[in-house]
């Protein structure tokens, strides 16, 4: 085949593929858009209740000026007086982060993961070209962004916000996420496995988040221009829109997409830029049972999680340090932090707040690791293992251990990162490391409850084993948006994180942790019992 016909035929079947992909993803797409846009509507509605007067909003802005650490994470507040400005400030970074990750995973699922599972072989051997899959993945990912943008614009205008601002906010988020989606098309060509591709894209998104966080924490830093997070924030929705920044996102996304698609169209199926090396012929002696295998499979990915958590923790620690220098005991700031779940001791409150973020991330790590059992079941690997002389409990124990212990280590690594750097700058190593590590460990039982829900679903209602993700989404909403949405206390308490004592920001109380550990044990036992009693593969 000449290279030009190869190039043309690389794209045949794109439309069929998109239809197929949409059928696979339409429910997920709708659910994410409704969830994210609905939440944004709730945030927009909250400001008149929380900060009803112009004076209170000006006070908020003045407070924020004193707290670079909050600005670092959330981005700058361009117009404190308008509801739209406040909504943008509160949501844009978090939304770009979440939707960006979602789009990356969608792209990988439709490219590298399909290829790895052999679905792509079927597709490619039919009437579908090699580049078509990359294009299709990209289009579907961007449809996530666009449905979100459409729904958001509708809901925000319904909440009484101006149309231009609403559109700018929605498109700024969708635009930045388009860059991430294109990036992960490239990652899917570079990496050999879907987990590698997910890892590279996730790390890239986290890195860009960190770059803009550092940029935001100091005045006039050029760093903000190096990150799509910065571009989205600097679009200044509801504060004199700078539309060209959305254009910049589109151009960068298109360039990256072209790069990824051309690699896809020209490489062999299954091949990657980082080639699969020839490796050992004999398995290490540890790979003799499911625990050994799970460690062999999960260790690299756990290591990256730990390095990432440590670095992000260190970053937060350094931001914490600069910001605390500027802080006085400001009642307005305290109120703000309290609304995010913190307490009245500022430094401690920040530590608890940030460890809360690591805990949610650790839940993500743990759920994904434990659900590997479900993937093993669906792919038939479990059938192969379970036809040998191991019990079902032993089979499950591998990824359960790496999931449970690994998630605890992720929180701890984040805590250590914060504690070490923060301590290094204020010179109280033992106190701050002790506080941060302790705060991390106290959070672990709540993480384990979320993992326990996943295990129980896996054992008892395997077709619903994804409920762990829903529980996690609920914990994010309750913990981060619950107060601002004005949800009643008892609803917030349905999240296991709502019961944590908040030490060192508040007095220590062991009872909630003990209860959470008991619940974890019950969930685990019921899940393993269900697993023993059911068909594998589940019918």
């Amino acid at each position, binding site marked *: 085949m000449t290279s030009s016909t190869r190039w043309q035929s690389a794209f045949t079947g794109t439309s069929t593929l998109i239809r197929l992909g949409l059928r696979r993803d339409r429910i997920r797409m709708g659910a994410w858009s409704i969830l994210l846009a609905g939440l944004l509507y709730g945030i927009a509605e909250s400001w008149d209740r929380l900060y009803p007067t112009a004076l209170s909003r000006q006070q908020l802005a003045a407070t924020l000026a004193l707290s670079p650490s909050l600005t670092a994470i959330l981005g700058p507040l361009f117009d404190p007086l308008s509801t739209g400005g406040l909504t943008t400030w509160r949501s844009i970074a978090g939304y770009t982060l979440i939707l960006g990750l979602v789009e990356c995973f969608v792209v990988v699922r439709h490219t590298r993961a399909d290829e790895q599972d052999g679905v792509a072989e079927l597709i490619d051997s039919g009437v579908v070209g090699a580049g078509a899959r990359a294009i299709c993945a990209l289009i579907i990912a961007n449809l996530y962004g666009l449905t979100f943008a459409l729904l958001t614009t509708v809901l925000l205008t319904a909440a009484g916000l101006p149309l231009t601002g609403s559109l700018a906010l929605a498109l700024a988020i969708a635009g930045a996420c388009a860059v991430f989606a294109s990036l992960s098309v490239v990652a899917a060509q570079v990496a050999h*496995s879907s987990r590698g591709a997910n890892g590279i894209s996730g790390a890239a998104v986290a890195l860009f988040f960190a770059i803009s966080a550092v940029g935001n924490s100091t005045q006039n830093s050029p760093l903000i221009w190096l990150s799509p997070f910065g571009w989205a924030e600097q679009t200044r929705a509801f504060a004199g829109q700078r539309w060209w920044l959305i254009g910049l996102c589109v151009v960068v996304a298109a360039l990256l997409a072209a790069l990824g698609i051309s690699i896809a169209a020209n490489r062999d199926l299954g091949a990657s830029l980082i080639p699969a090396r020839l490796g050992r012929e004999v398995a290490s002696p540890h790979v003799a049972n499911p625990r050994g295998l799970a460690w062999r*499979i999960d260790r690299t990915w756990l290591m990256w999680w730990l390095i990432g958590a440590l670095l992000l923790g260190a970053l937060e620690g350094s931001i914490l340090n600069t910001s605390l220098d500027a802080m006085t005991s400001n009642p307005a700031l305290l109120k703000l932090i309290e609304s995010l779940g913190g307490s009245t001791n500022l430094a401690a409150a920040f530590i608890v707040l940030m460890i809360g973020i690591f805990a949610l991330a650790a839940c993500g790590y743990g759920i994904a690791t434990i659900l590997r059992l479900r993937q093993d079941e669906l792919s038939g690997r479990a059938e192969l293992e379970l036809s*040998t002389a191991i019990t079902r409990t032993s089979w499950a124990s591998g990824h359960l251990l790496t999931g449970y212990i690994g998630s605890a280590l992720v929180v701890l690594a984040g805590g250590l990162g914060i504690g070490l750097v923060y301590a290094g700058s204020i010179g109280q190593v033992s106190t701050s490391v002790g506080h941060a590590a302790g705060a991390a460990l106290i959070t672990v039982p709540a993480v384990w409850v979320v993992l326990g829900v996943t295990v129980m679903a896996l054992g008892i209602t395997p077709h619903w084993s994804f409920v762990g993700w829903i529980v996690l989404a609920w914990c994010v909403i309750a913990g981060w948006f619950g107060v601002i949405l004005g949800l009643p206390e008892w609803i917030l308490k349905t999240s296991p994180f709502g019961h944590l004592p908040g030490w060192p920001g508040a007095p220590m109380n062991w009872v909630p942790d003990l209860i959470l550990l008991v619940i974890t044990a019950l969930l685990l036992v019921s899940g393993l019992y269900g697993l023993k009693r059911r068909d594998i593969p589940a019918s």
Partner: protein
Amino acid sequence: MKDQGDLSAAAIIDVRGLTKTFGDTTALNGLDLTVHPGQIHGFLGPNGAGKTTTLRVVLGLLAKDSGVAHVFGADPWSQAVSIHRRLSYVPGEVSLWPTLRGGESIDYLTRLRGGADRARISQLQELFDLNPRVKVSAYSKGNRQKVALIAALAVDVPLYIFDEPTDGLDPLMAEVFREEVKALRERERTVLLSSHVLAEVDAVCDHVTIIRDGRTIETGALSDLRHLQRQSLVIETRDAVDDLGQIPGVHDVERHDRIVRCTVEPSALHDVLRRAAAAHVLNLETRPPSLEEMFLRYYDRDPS
């Protein structure tokens, strides 16, 4: 009933009246399967007949709805682990851990089965022409199949269960597999082999159970079953033969000059040969029915 009980006591796999439903689908509907020690037992049926489901019940992966299932005299659902110590299984769809090398996967699976001789593993890798240092994600379907086959054949156990083992292997490798099964027969191991590749059952099995729609429709020694079947005859005679088509049990009669081809049921064989002999036989070829013909007949799709 008594002698049946005695017989089945000796059976390695004893399945009677097995039923299993998945929601509205009835996958197994009173299936019987008996495998005695030393048999190379073919398990034949069209797509969706219930072969895989039966094997999964036998392995204790699926719970049966009703009926009897015993393996080594024990209940596979409650005593799966002790049964599994004595068998080796290759599923129909082999999926492996993408980040592992082929060799690591083989080691892992054999270690789960209690360990295997390294020299034996190397020998099988050579026979099946598998590069064990390649990552599994780079393997073709056939190579993944080889990994599972090597891991199963490398251990020495009384019972081997294969679900469509040569699906995805090229003819050369399928032949290697058949040789291995013959070696198992010589070592008096028991093999249960599901397939719809008839040539395979024909080539290696001595017993066969044929199922359709979750029910057993025929079972027995391959040689006995053939007896029930038509023979293909080609007869060359000096004189013209009387019309053979009139004899009940004679089918597919074709004439070319003095050469007659037909298929004959065992009951009609005597009459056919007598008439042919009367016309002075010059040459006679007989061929046992291929399993293909036999198989198609069971599914009401006569090949003629």
